[in-house]
């Protein structure tokens, strides 16, 4: 009990309790739909933000191209899923219809991972070999360049039109708490929760996960202990890319694919990461849900279009009083203190 009180009176505890209270109040005031919406998008924001926080913690890269993984995810899922859907219209097959969306999402996962891997090998490794001076700023600018290349490259090849689907599973929406929720939303939330669980198990319980955490704590020490840095760094970026691409693929029904679709998720992921403290992976998962709730409430009570203004104001307050973030980051940047 006393442990609970101590946790509840810490900044992290206060925030989480306050979020729960806000969620309950808005459930009563604005109806269940806002809360459910917040939870569904929150799961995906958590996936995105966890990847962003991991890459910053392990590789010291403030990834501005993180939203482009999301974009790649939506694109791959679209190009894998729509032919399958067309095929299904010709020859209906209930089993295939249930599995086809997973094929799209899995393909997005793999491609996102590959893009992350290629980014590390082609760009960041090259810079790391040459110079580590002012690494964080240089890496940040490199990701800016990569983001511009990817957005406009995709635009050149596939054009700017919206490539979306109305839904993954063509079934009746379920009734839950008196509201209709599409199966897509429930599936997206389920996928996010499962992925987060697997990711957390991997990071905490496996040898490779331990190696990743070791690198984030002390790079030189990890190297002395026989950890292959190049491998861990490539793996980290691939993992982060895969999770972001998966988020994009699972939300294809909400975010139709177009070149700059990744910008909004990118803002959100950065809001979350600054809010909880740079490099704090566990905090990022919680923060994803907090920011999703905040955004849903902002657009419900203040109006659409203010979602950028309100979190910025909050972050300004936070930086004034608690610059290390709500949960304080245990994982600090290595080269830049």
């Amino acid at each position, binding site marked *: 009990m006393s442990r609970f009180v101590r946790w509840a009176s810490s900044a992290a505890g206060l925030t989480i309790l306050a979020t729960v209270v806000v969620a309950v109040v808005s459930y009563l005031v604005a109806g269940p739909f806002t809360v459910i919406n917040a939870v569904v998008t929150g799961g995906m924001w958590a996936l995105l933000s966890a990847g962003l926080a991991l890459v910053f913690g392990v590789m010291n890269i*403030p990834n501005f191209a993180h939203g482009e993984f999301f974009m790649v995810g939506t694109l791959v899922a679209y190009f894998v899923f729509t032919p399958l859907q067309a095929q299904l219209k010709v020859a209906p097959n209930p089993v295939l219809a249930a599995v086809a969306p997973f094929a799209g999402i899995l393909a997005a996962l793999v491609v996102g991972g590959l893009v992350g891997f290629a980014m590390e090998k082609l*760009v960041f490794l*090259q*810079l790391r070999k*040459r*110079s580590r001076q*002012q690494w*964080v*700023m*240089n890496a*940040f*600018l*490199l990701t*800016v*360049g*990569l*983001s*511009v*290349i990817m*957005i*406009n*490259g995709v*635009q*050149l090849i596939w054009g*700017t039109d919206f490539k979306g689907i109305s839904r993954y599973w063509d079934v009746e929406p379920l009734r839950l708490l008196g509201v209709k929720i599409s199966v897509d939303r429930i599936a997206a939330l389920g996928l996010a929760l499962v992925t987060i669980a697997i990711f957390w198990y991997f990071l905490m319980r496996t040898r490779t996960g331990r190696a990743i955490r070791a690198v984030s704590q002390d790079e030189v020490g990890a190297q002395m202990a026989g950890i292959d840095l190049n491998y861990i760094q490539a793996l980290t970026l691939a993992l982060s890319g895969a999770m972001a691409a998966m988020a994009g693929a699972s939300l294809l029904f909400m975010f139709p694919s177009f*070149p700059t679709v990744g910008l909004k998720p990118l*803002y959100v992921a*950065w*809001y979350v990461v*600054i809010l909880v403290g*740079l490099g704090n992976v566990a905090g990022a998962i919680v923060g994803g849900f907090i920011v999703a709730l905040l955004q849903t409430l902002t657009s419900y009570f203040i*109006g659409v*279009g*203010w979602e*950028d*203004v309100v*979190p*910025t*104001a909050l*972050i*300004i307050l936070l*930086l*004034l009083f608690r*610059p290390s973030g709500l949960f304080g980051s245990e994982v600090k*940047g290595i080269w*830049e*203190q």
Partner: protein
Amino acid sequence: MQDQTSSVLESRVRSKAASQPVVWGQVRAVLQAVGLNPLGLILIVLLASAPLVPPFNREDLLRYLIGAALIGAQAVAFDFTTGYINVVNFGFAAFTGLGAYTSGLLAVRLGVFPWAGMFAGAIVAGLIGLFTGVLTLRLRGIFAAVMAWFVGLAVMGLARNLVDITRGKAGLNVPTFLDTPSNLPYFYIILVMLLITYLGLRLITNSHIGLAFRAIGQNMDAARASGVNPTFYRVLNFTVQCAFAGWLGGFYAHYYGILTPDVMLTSHTVEVLAVAYIGGRGSIWGGALVAFPFIFMIETLRSNLTALPGLHLVIYGLLLVIVMVFYPGGVAQLYYMAPVYLRRLRYRLGQSRVGRSG
């Protein structure tokens, strides 16, 4: 032996001094004091006379030149922060836009003279920059970069949403500086503004303040140990940069005559950033030099390849990545290292000749 060398040196110095008129030395000294060298002066004169010679006296090419000068001036201001205190202002375009909107709104709503409105824009952008800087610059550099970006997004959101004041996406019609369809006067206005930006910032970086900036950018702990207050100088630098961004925004508003929230898009920051980095960080002049050929190339490409929108941005991105990874000093480093490269080349050529003869 030593005597001989020194006397040879002395005679050389004497002969060099004698061969040059005294006036020339004084001119050089004056130029150096304000941050120019003869080559720079020649380039400025060439640039100023460019619109009078045939290929550049067309209005469309003149527009490119004006755009290039504006980006060049922005890149100069950008490099003042990135190259010296190693902080990236990722909301740079928003600060320009803030200055533009301030000046434009003052002119539209209160009838303020554009020339005065420009400075009001600079003050507002500087104040917001001061606020952002005070908030974030005591933290690691990445906080300032991301926070400036957020502030930029928020300002853009305000410009979009406060439709009653800014007319939102519909765009604000702003009176121009002059009642003339010709672009020529505007070219000279922006050229003078570019020069003022360059000389003003050069004056700061050449002073002891600039020394403090450089020290902070290279090793903040060492600077702090030597009694330099990093937060003060970083905030000072950031504020000055934002004020210049706002001031240049005033030109944007009263030259193009229409303002939309898209002025503040991050892609404009990326343009400035790419030009500043390709020009060479920490040089101040690199961005201004590179802007002209670069913007010309990009604009020509863009007008000829309308079927491939976004190609110019891919080139921006690729150049940025390539320069950052393989040649981080940019064009400025190329300039400073050119004598070394030439000497090395000559040495190699000489060696191969020796090799052949032996």
